[in-house]
């Protein structure tokens, strides 16, 4: 029993006596020693440097000795800690003597201060006023508008040289773009258009069935799809599918200096890269739109025939009566406009892309967001115009 108590006593006193890993010890009036001991690796418990500096302030020496006793192990933590103390002392004109430290640490400290900090290299975090932020946003917006106008101008020039038969691009590229913007998109256009037709039919049916006028679902679905939803939904799909792809492709080519290489070869990237992409989308989107119209009407028919007691022939006749060529032309005209907008947004963002991986991502995102905004705005304008003109 006694020896056990004794043992416990030793253990306790050992913990008590375990030297603090760092401490300030005044030596005489003008000198203080900072002593480091024990374990200085990651995970060791060490009091914050501020506390040590406060202790140092309390003794206010004119000379500081850095000393190490029985260091168990250390990593980058110790030199970083010591540098903080040294910088603090130097700022207060306190002389630092590091000769009491192991040579390895002394060398590291010397290396870290070998190249003086370059004046003006450190970025000061300035507080910006809100006005400055607003100004910057407006200027950025203006820059965007200027970029857009410049891009439209360059596109016009490229189309002019296409009309004069002077544009340089590879027919293979055009065919690949057409394949990508047309047939390859059929599956998703089928799915979405069919479902939109279905939804239109259901929404209309709930109201029309109250009057027993289910047959007019055909009118609603037919007109809604052909004049509006067919073009709009295809455009939204294609801006996510093709517009983003254009921006990412051209952006990556920019990052990889491929566009610079074309320029120095004397080949205009607007003709070589942008023209085939724009042409492909302008050729393909109206066709996709036509196909989407058919699918939408089919979707409507599926609901009406199966759930609302209308025969397929009735539905067909009613649709034929309701939808005429003008309605089709409006839808197709819209899809042409949308194609132009999607291709412009995608190609412009790609060509103006910065030179980093994140810039390519930003370009793709901006391409999709821009084209959807353009599409919806243009759609509203055209619809309003048609309404006023009575078409």
């Amino acid at each position, binding site marked *: 029993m006694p020896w056990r108590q004794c043992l416990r006593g030793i253990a306790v006193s050992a913990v008590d006596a375990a030297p603090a890993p760092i401490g300030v010890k005044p030596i005489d009036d003008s000198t203080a020693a900072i002593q480091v001991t024990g374990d200085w690796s990651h995970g060791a418990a060490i009091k914050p440097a501020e506390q040590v500096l406060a202790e140092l302030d309390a003794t206010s020496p004119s000379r500081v000795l850095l000393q190490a006793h029985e260091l168990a192990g250390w990593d980058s933590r110790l030199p970083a800690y010591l540098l903080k103390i040294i910088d603090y002392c130097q700022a207060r004109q306190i002389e630092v003597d590091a000769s009491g430290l192991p040579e390895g640490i002394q060398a590291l400290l010397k290396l870290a201060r070998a190249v003086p900090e370059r004046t003006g290299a450190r970025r000061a975090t300035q507080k910006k006023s809100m006005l400055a932020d607003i100004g910057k946003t407006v200027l950025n917006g203006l820059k965007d508008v200027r970029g857009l106008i410049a891009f439209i101008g360059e596109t016009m020039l490229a189309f002019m040289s296409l009309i004069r038969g002077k544009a*340089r691009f590879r027919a293979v590229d055009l065919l690949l773009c057409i394949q990508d913007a047309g047939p390859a998109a059929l599956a998703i256009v089928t799915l979405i258009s069919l479902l939109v037709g279905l939804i239109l039919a259901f929404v209309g049916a709930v109201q029309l069935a109250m009057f027993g006028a289910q047959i007019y679902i055909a009118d609603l679905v037919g007109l809604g799809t052909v004049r509006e939803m067919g073009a709009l939904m295809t455009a939204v799909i294609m801006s996510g599918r093709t517009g983003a792809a254009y921006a990412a492709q051209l952006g990556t*080519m920019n990052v*990889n*200096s491929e566009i610079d*290489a074309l*320029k*120095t*070869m*004397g*080949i205009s990237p607007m003709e070589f890269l942008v023209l085939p992409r724009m042409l492909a989308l302008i050729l393909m989107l109206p066709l996709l739109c036509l196909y989407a119209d058919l699918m939408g009407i089919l979707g409507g028919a599926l609901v009406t025939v199966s759930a609302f007691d209308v025969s397929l022939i009735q539905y067909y006749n009613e649709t034929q009566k309701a939808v005429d060529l003008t309605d089709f032309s409006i839808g197709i005209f819209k899809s042409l406009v949308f194609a132009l907008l999607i291709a412009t947004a995608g190609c412009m963002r790609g060509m103006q892309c910065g030179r980093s991986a994140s810039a390519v991502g930003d370009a793709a995102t901006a391409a999709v967001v821009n084209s959807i905004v353009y599409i919806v705005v243009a759609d509203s304008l055209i619809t309003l115009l048609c309404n006023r003109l009575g078409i």
Partner: protein
Amino acid sequence: MNTPHITVTDLTMAYGDFVIQQDLTFTIDHGDIFIIMGGSGCGKSTLLKHLIGLQRPAKGAVFYDRQDFWHASDEERVRIMRRIGVLYQSGALFSSLTLAENIALPLGEFTDMGSREIADIASYKLALVGLAGFEDYYPSEISGGMQKRAGLARAMALDPEILFFDEPSAGLDPVSARLLDDLIISLRDTLGTTIVVVTHELASIFAIGSNSVFLDPETKTMLATGAPRKLLAESSDPRIIQFLTRGESNVDKPA
């Protein structure tokens, strides 16, 4: 050798208000291997962009033979640009085309050769840079050094009078870098091509350079122009000596 091939007079390069280099004046003779050297961030690559028509100078002029490059009409500038070939740092091969198609592209655009003849020339250029048999590979399928050599083959496609190299040996092992240097010298000797190289590889600078310009990031101007060996032997500027000796010589020469 009477008129210099490229003359740069009083050139100032800037991004907006931020001046990169100013008052650059030097000439590049026919058949020179001209080195643009200087520490990191001193504007070597930017100078290259001004020479190959990617960036307009803020001030000053670049002449090709006697023709003012930046004040020429767009068509004339394109005509000058067709006389030069550029090897970009990353190769800048068109990633959607095979190596043969990459080389065939400028040939198809600017000559009226048949496709079979173009394919033959593409194979020949690839063989010149040691890539015979790689016609149908895509750039992503070959190593970085091979991409660089393929980029060189494309730059040489139209038999340019002047070839520009942007850091040709960056990212290459010493042996490949040496092979590229040998290739550059033999291009100059056999075809008489004028060659402009942006680099800071000392080994290459001394091995191939017959003339050079040294750009300094601190003073934002050129410190010297001349053959690299001559600069090392005769220059009294500690910054040049330090650069050319990797900072190993004691720079105690009387400045």
